């Protein structure tokens, strides 16, 4: 009897040990001799926390993590080329979760569902449901570990608005009104005129999400499932109508109140301009909120407010292509007659693992991403502007002590986190595009056409025609029916 009991106990122990091998927290010497090559964008954001914590992770586990950086515009195809050609020199990568559709379907990304489900240290339940579903999963399986939560917001100088007697912008007309009033004023005491609005508009960088942030509230009013990119009946692009024209005009006009070379500025440049006190308004992800409290870099500490993306008082009627005024039917989620559509631009930088990497390397890569995402590391990183990581855990959005410890006043923390929470809670939140070849639709077609419009090469009408034509070409090439099915699936239809 005791032998049988001993054998049963031993079998249970073996099974438990086997399962624990998959999900055990990183242990000293567990990955001695293992090297993990992780690719991401040049940054310095995003690469910084990975590079900073890699040596700590090596001390903990023995795994050496090489962070390889490439320009953002090259990241998508570098990963695809390495994995599609079978070179497999890249073991893991931190990239845009919306690109999953191009990496998962050909089988390049490792399914992490079991690992993440069994990983107690990851505290998955604390990750906001939106990021758990959008940034981690594809067709119901988890392929990526969330490291960052992305929403675009508008930032404003509280002191400048107070001086102008203006309220934080609720609509895009308000935004332009404030930008125009503030433009040319000296906002940082250096005697030189500063700018009303600073928005990154550089081609081939991360600028093209901004136009979608502007367009969202004109295009979507019936809730997240409606979508802003295509008509869900026939996959017709929603970029050639009065709503998108209105958005392009707002975007174009904002350039008048910005730096002379705004169309050549990347997000890093506009953030520096804002935190050095040269801009009254900006449109960006959560980074400005944390960069503004950095005592070494910021000249606008305690002078920055954040607000949900401005909305619109009119929205697109999809049958006529015209803008119609907001009312209870056309804008059921409007607040005070204004339709807001906060844009979950990009999704949030997340870590994915090469399905063809050596199994030991895969384990080490997963352990590294889990380590980065665990609250002990993540809670600090999301409060530091230099990391580029923005809050994505519910505790990060509720626990003010994290932010006060980082240097934010209680009022500023409530304002900043409130704007993010309001975006997350919005029933009319806009999802980013996640169909196959979404990178071509956005980073190539949309980015090029909008860059040409800003350079004066195209009118608003020609810009819309150009984008619509390019998007239709891509859709026909990939397959209209399959793209429509994929698009509707991402909207939960």
């Amino acid at each position, binding site marked *: 009897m005791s032998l049988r009991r001993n054998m049963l106990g031993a079998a249970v122990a073996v099974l438990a040990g086997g399962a624990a091998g998959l999900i055990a927290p990183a242990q000293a010497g567990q990955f001695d001799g293992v090297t993990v090559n992780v690719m991401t964008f040049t940054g310095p954001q995003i690469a910084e926390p990975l590079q900073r914590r890699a040596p700590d992770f090596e001390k903990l586990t023995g795994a050496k993590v090489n962070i390889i950086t490439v320009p953002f*515009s*090259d990241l*998508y*195809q570098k990963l*695809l080329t390495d994995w*599609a050609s079978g070179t497999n020199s890249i073991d893991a990568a931190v990239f845009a979760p919306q690109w999953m559709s*191009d990496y998962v*379907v*050909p*089988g390049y990304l490792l399914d992490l569902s079991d690992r993440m489900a069994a990983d107690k240290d990851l505290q998955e339940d604390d990750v906001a449901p939106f990021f758990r579903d959008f940034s981690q999963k594809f067709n119901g399986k988890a392929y990526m570990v969330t490291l960052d939560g992305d929403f675009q917001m508008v930032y404003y100088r509280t002191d400048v608005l107070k001086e102008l007697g203006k309220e934080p912008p609720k609509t895009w007309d308000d935004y332009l009104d404030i930008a125009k009033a503030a433009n040319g004023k000296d906002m940082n005491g250096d005697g030189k005129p500063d700018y009303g609005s600073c928005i990154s508009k*550089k*081609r*081939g*960088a991360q600028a093209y999400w901004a136009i979608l942030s502007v367009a969202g509230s004109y295009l979507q009013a019936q809730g997240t499932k409606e979508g802003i990119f295509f008509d869900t009946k026939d996959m017709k692009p929603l970029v050639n109508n009065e709503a998108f024209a209105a958005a392009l005009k707002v975007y174009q006009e904002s350039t008048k109140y910005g*730096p*002379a*070379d*705004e*169309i*050549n500025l990347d997000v890093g440049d506009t953030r520096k301009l804002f935190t050095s006190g040269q801009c009254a308004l900006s449109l960006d992800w959560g980074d400005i909120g944390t960069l503004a409290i950095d005592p070494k870099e910021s000249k606008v500490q305690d002078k920055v407010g954040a607000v949900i993306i401005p909305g619109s008082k009119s929205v697109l009627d999809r049958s006529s292509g015209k803008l119609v005024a907001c009312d209870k039917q056309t804008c059921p989620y409007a607040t005070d007659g204004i339709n807001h559509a906060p844009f979950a631009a990009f999704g949030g930088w997340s870590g994915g693992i090469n399905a063809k990497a050596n199994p030991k390397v895969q384990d080490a890569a997963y352990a590294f991403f889990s380590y980065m995402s665990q609250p002990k590391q993540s809670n600090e990183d999301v409060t530091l502007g230099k990391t580029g990581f923005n809050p994505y855990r519910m505790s990060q959005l509720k626990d003010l002590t994290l932010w006060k410890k980082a240097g934010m006043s209680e009022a500023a923390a409530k304002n900043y986190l409130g704007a993010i929470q309001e975006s997350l809670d919005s029933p009319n939140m806009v999802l980013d595009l996640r169909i*196959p070849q979404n*990178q*071509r639709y956005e*980073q*190539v077609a949309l980015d*090029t056409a909008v*860059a*040409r*419009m*800003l*350079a*004066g*090469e*195209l009118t608003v009408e020609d810009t819309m025609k150009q984008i619509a*034509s*390019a998007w239709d*070409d891509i859709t026909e*090439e*990939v397959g209209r029916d399959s793209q429509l099915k994929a698009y509707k699936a991402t909207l939960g239809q």
Partner: protein
Amino acid sequence: MRLSFSDWLDRQADRLFILPAVLILLTFSIFPLLISAYLALSRFQLTAGGYQLRFVGWLNFKKLLFGGEQYHFLGVFVPVPWYGWLLLALVILLLARSIAQYIRSGKPTLFGLIGRAVTTAAILALALLLAATIGAGGQLGSLSVTVIYVAVGVTCQLLIGLGLAMLCSQNIRCRGFFRVVFFLPLMVTPVGIAYTFRMLADMTQGPLAGLWRFVGLGDLSWASQAWSARLVVMVGDTWQWTPFIFIVLLAAIEGQSREQVEAASLDGASYWQIFRDVTWPEIAPVASTIVLIRVIEAFKIVDLPNVLTNGGPGIATESLTLHSFINWRALDLGGSAAVAYMLLIVSTVLCASFFNYVMQPMRSRRQ
């Protein structure tokens, strides 16, 4: 009498000895050329388990010349403005003069006439393209932008390089120091040059910001205007490559016959007369060779427009290679290969024409 095997081998020796070099050349240039030709006629698509290349015929080229990418490659067409007509007239005049000279030379051949007809058609087509896209409302495509970079850039590099070479061939103090200094830019990586010029041209934050503000350019953004952005690219390219022309022409000038120069000087010829009648005829073959090498390289310019402006504003500074690179980056491998082949065709026709109708006559005259 039948040859023995060893005799046959002896006769084939020269071919056999160069065969390894030929095979290497074929492996690393011709075969990839053929494979990329197939790519240019295909569409690349990702699939489960890998990727797929689907043959689509001339579709990629049709898109560039007549379809959705025409604005990108050829440009946006508008009525030809007066300066466009002037340019066309000048080009037609020069081409007509060249053909007339050839016919009057008394030695025209059929192949010579066909070759000149191809060259004339190519140059005329490029001139027409430029004239039809340069007017108000028009827009230059990557082909025209590349041709401008080559023509303007190499001309400036030749004039400046030649001038510096003439100066450094004089018996001046510290000429050894100047030779090294003038040669330095060639040693710098193109990306470094691009970032340096980006900083120098920054009107608000760069090291010369005070100077730009002093001359009233503080609010100008060179990167937001098409022609100023192209100018900065050409300035950077000229700064980088002038030393190459300088160093070769310096060697050519110092290698010319001193007796002829001294004799001309004794006869009372001016500096300009000595240059025109003695120095230039001596160094012209070398100059034309170096220009040919520069033209071939200039067609492939990519670093400067990529780092300086990302091809912007809009697509105003995109060269053909950058256009191809941007397509490749978006995994449109067929489109990328098609642009690369158009570059190959244009540069081959122009460079072969330059070799046959400029360099060869120069060498023949010298002999």
